[in-house]
């Protein structure tokens, strides 16, 4: 994994795709899951999802696992490398939230 991959922030779309692919899902199911997780705030377009899935496949963060037995749609799942990236991103986000909360408390105390 490159240094950039380890330390760069993921886009919101990629983050949510990796979260969604902790269980095997096809493209449409990923879109629906993301919409559900974010209560409709984030809706991924099919073109955007297609580009993201291809980039994630190229990086080896997800893999294609054949077709769903009922719908014949291609399914994808997160790889161990993708899990590491996701884990690092969650830690990065937690650190950011912590900084935000501490600073906000600081501002509150001054007032």
């Amino acid at each position, binding site marked *: 994994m490159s240094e950039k991959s380890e330390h760069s*922030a993921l*886009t*919101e*779309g990629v983050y949510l795709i990796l979260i969604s692919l902790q269980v095997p899902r*096809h*493209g*449409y199911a990923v*879109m629906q899951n993301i919409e559900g997780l974010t209560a409709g705030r984030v*809706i*991924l*377009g*099919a*073109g*955007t*999802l*297609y*580009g*993201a*899935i291809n980039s994630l496949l190229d990086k080896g963060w997800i893999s294609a696992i054949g077709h769903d037995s009922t*719908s014949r*749609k*291609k399914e994808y799942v997160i790889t161990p490398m993708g899990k590491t990236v996701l884990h690092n991103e969650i830690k990065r986000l937690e650190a950011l939230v912590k900084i935000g909360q501490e600073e906000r408390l600081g501002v509150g105390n001054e007032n």
Partner: protein
Amino acid sequence: MKIKLWRFVIDVEKTEEWLNRLAAEGLHCVGFGFIAYRYYFEQGEAGAYTYRIAMLEESIGHPKSIQYIAFLKENGVECIGHVLGHVFLRKRTADGAFTLFTDRASQINNYRNMLKERKIGIMVLLVSALFYLYALIAGNINMAAGIGFISSHFHPIVIMFYACGLLLVGTVYSYIRQWRRYSARIKELQQEGALYE
């Protein structure tokens, strides 16, 4: 019963708006002629479909394009045809909003592809304009000198020639406007990108 309507595609976004306006009235495009000037529609439930015209990065027969269209199909998007590197897509409105590009990076990438195609288009059109100007000047000189069989500006061939000239000027103007529009959008998205992820 299929209904035929005529429209010459110059501005893709305006054509997309036109298709969606007709779809909202219950006229759903199901295909078109060779260079997308003749469109076929079927009467149906008002607003049943949403249409999008997308630019392909590769030619329609390229494996990447085939894979992309197959992916869209898996996601409930139907491809009704293609012309000059663009695919005409539709999705049932009941299945949710139909937007192809929803994040800044993919939007910028899409506008860049469209910009690239417009740039090539403008260059081809400008070369055509040079040939047209040559034919216009040579034709007028010949006419003034009484050479050839055409002696009037109102000859059907001359009228057709002038009509082609108007179409050429209109297309170049539209392409330049689209080029400026897409450049402005890319710049706007890049500026937003400096503030938001």
